[in-house]
């Protein structure tokens, strides 16, 4: 035996793989977080002689190691290692004994015991495997200690109930109606792993209702049943569902960075005016600056009244393509006490598609859902449910975003009228649709889409429109042009040719052949805005306001949004007009 074997202070490297493996196995139940495992055994074991030429590289950790004299392992307990349990492998008797018979002193091993047992052995050796020790040290420093299971006998059986064994609570599971965080919401069984991972297959069968809970997925069949149940419930309460868009419908927002220095004084003026206003309380302040999300937000006039009135007739939801955080902030402004929307807020994160809005996430029958949105295009599958509303442009950035010229409401120091603005028109229509829905003997059979369609058709009924310089002549199918379709949707008849039966000529320019002829024939010559205004307000707009002459005059002064100009004429208070005149 080389002399160093006799020296317990000199740790040497044990390289016998099987030995280490065995130790690891035994350690499984013991401490894994051990910083430095001292393996002490007697060097007389012939089978476990270290390979020749395995000197003892000193580990840095060993600096604190036992430093007693040869054959004085009893000094072990005096080390600081009291904090780190020592794993003692003690073998009594020289030779003969198999390693399996070794005794594994666990963490509980009392230091004194170590001393006595090790003293009993004639000689001692500290085996050390540098890699392993270092690895363990790293684990310990990473701060992920695993408590030894031996210390918790009551839980060792780990009665985490095997889920497979779970008897189904309901006879009808599977198919599972839905999963919340991977647990069936009816029987509590875990979601089968292949479904949880294979997103593709999952997508077709179930719908994520993330706005109710982040990890909620509901089977499509079950959603259908829920929708049906919800619709009957609402009908019993004489309510319909109503989905609001946020941006440009109920409010307008602009990022702080998009507000130019020229706009700031205007904004502050509005803020101070609102602060001074006598009416305080919910719904009176409409302009907010939200520094934490870097936004200016202006709520549309009349929004409060609209929500209040609608809450009596509708089950209201918000559906926006904005981020969840933004949506929640906006809803907080609109509905501070959560009395209108509750948790019915669907944002982009909750939607099933990134670019399209869809009613699939909404619990409610399509036959009884009305949608209020400024861009019906995003509702691919539900165009018929959409009630289009004029875009609300309060901030300049909002106009720029849509590539529109002209001045926004802020720059004109104006706002929509609270009493006859787009929201109040919308409220009238909503009420009318609601009344008609429930006036029928069997509300279950009615369909808002039909009602909305017929309401639209009544708006321009009896009008025959002819277009001039509105639809490019090159366009093969003029019938497909949006304004043509819009006019037809609202009950007008459209034609390509100007004749005696035409009631309105829609044109962008006074000088076209058609418009001159039409003027001679005594036909109304109107701008395309007339069609839009009629559609937004659900009533035939006064033709005089949309006369072509007026527009050209307006064009010269650089004001484009005629519909709002009209309102301006009606409702703007005297001082605002004076201010506007001054500004010009």
């Amino acid at each position, binding site marked *: 035996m080389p002399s160093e074997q006799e020296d317990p202070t000199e740790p040497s490297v044990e390289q016998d793989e099987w030995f280490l493996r065995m130790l690891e196995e035994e350690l499984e139940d013991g*401490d894994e*977080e051990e*910083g430095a495992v001292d393996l002490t055994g007697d060097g007389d074991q012939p089978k476990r002689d270290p390979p020749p030429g395995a000197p003892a590289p000193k580990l*840095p*950790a060993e*600096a*604190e190691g036992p430093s007693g004299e040869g054959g004085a392992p009893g000094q072990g307990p005096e080390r*600081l*290692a*009291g*904090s*780190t*349990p020592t794993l003692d492998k003690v073998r009594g008797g020289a030779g003969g004994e198999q390693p399996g018979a070794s005794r594994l002193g666990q*963490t509980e091993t009392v230091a004194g015991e170590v001393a006595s047992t090790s003293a009993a052995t004639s000689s001692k050796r500290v085996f050390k495997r540098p890699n392993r020790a270092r690895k363990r040290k790293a684990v*310990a*420093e990473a*701060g992920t*200690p695993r*408590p*030894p299971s031996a*210390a*918790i006998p*009551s*839980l060792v059986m*780990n*009665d*985490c*109930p095997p*889920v497979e064994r*779970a008897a189904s*609570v*309901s006879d009808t599971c599977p198919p599972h*109606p*839905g999963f*919340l*965080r*991977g*647990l*069936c*919401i*009816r*029987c*509590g*069984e*875990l979601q089968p792993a292949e479904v949880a991972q294979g997103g593709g297959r999952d997508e077709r069968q179930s719908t994520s*209702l993330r706005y*109710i*809970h982040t990890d*909620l997925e*509901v089977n499509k069949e079950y959603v259908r049943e*829920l929708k049906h149940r*919800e619709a009957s*419930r609402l009908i019993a309460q004489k309510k319909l569902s109503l989905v609001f868009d946020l941006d440009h419908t109920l409010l307008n927002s602009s990022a702080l960075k998009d507000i130019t220095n020229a706009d700031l004084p205007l904004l502050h003026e509005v803020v101070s005016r609102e602060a001074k206003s006598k009416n305080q309380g919910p719904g009176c302040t409409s302009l907010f600056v939200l520094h934490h999300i870097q936004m200016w937000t202006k709520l549309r006039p009349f929004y409060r009244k609209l929500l209040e009135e609608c809450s009596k007739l509708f*089950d209201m939801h918000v559906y926006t393509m904005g981020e969840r955080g933004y949506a929640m902030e906006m809803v907080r402004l609109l509905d501070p006490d*959560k009395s209108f929307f*509750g*948790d019915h807020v669907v944002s982009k994160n909750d939607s099933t598609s990134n670019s399209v809005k869809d009613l699939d996430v909404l*619990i409610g029958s399509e036959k009884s859902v009305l949608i209020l949105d400024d861009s019906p295009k995003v509702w691919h599958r539900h165009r018929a449910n959409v009630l289009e509303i004029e875009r609300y442009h309060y901030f300049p950035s909002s106009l720029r975003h849509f590539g529109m010229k002209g001045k926004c409401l802020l720059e004109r120091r104006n706002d929509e009228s609270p009493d006859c603005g787009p929201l109040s028109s919308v409220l009238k229509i909503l009420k009318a649709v609601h009344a008609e829905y429930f006036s029928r003997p069997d509300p279950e059979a009615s369909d808002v889409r039909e009602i909305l369609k017929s309401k639209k058709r009544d708006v321009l009924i009896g009008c025959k429109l002819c277009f001039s310089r509105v639809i490019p002549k090159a366009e093969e199918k003029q019938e497909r042009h949006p304004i043509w379709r819009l006019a037809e949707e609202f009950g007008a008849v459209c034609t390509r040719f100007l004749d005696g039966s035409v009631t309105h000529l829609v044109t962008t320019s006074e000088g076209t052949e058609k418009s001159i002829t039409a003027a001679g024939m005594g036909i109304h010559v109107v701008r395309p805005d007339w069609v839009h205004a009629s559609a937004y307000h659900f009533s035939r707009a006064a033709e005089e306001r949309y006369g072509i002459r007026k527009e050209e005059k307006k064009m010269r002064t650089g004001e484009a949004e005629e519909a709002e100009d009209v309102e301006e004429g009606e409702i703007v208070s005297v001082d605002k007009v004076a201010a506007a005149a001054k500004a010009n």
Partner: protein
Amino acid sequence: MFFLLDMERIVTLPPQHFGSGLRDVLHKQLVREVEGTCSGKHGYIVSVTKITDSGKGRVQVGTGKATFHMKYQCVAFRPFKGEVLDCVVTQITKLGFFADAGPFAIFVSSSLIPDDYEFTSGDQGPCFTSGDQDVAIVRNCEVRVKVVGIRVDATEIFGIGTIKEDYLGVLGGPDMS
């Protein structure tokens, strides 16, 4: 279910705490690190009841910090399937309601609520009302729930519960507590 467990943990302490108050700091540090945590195996560690051994410190080479191998006794809350728990309703949706039994969140879906209960959104917010209008499950009311399924994650436990069995359901309203 609650358990009294003997556990161990290695606590690291920076050198500025070495001194007469070391043990105090050490104990506080352990409590701070351990209480309120959740492991899938033991459940939520509710409270450290006793520190049996705070061990001897061992100074780490390089950092100067000392590591202590501490042994302590703590109360752990580990929910099990089939367990009946009293909890507080936190959120009501059309699909069912969420309830908390301490740190443990349970969802009771509408299919596990007795059939005569109906979802309504009245003046006090959304609620489930029983057929005879006698009992309503509203936010903050207390319910007795039986756990039918549990999902154990590394740091969180979540469960599905039912009130569709005898002796389960509303215990008291939000104002009775």
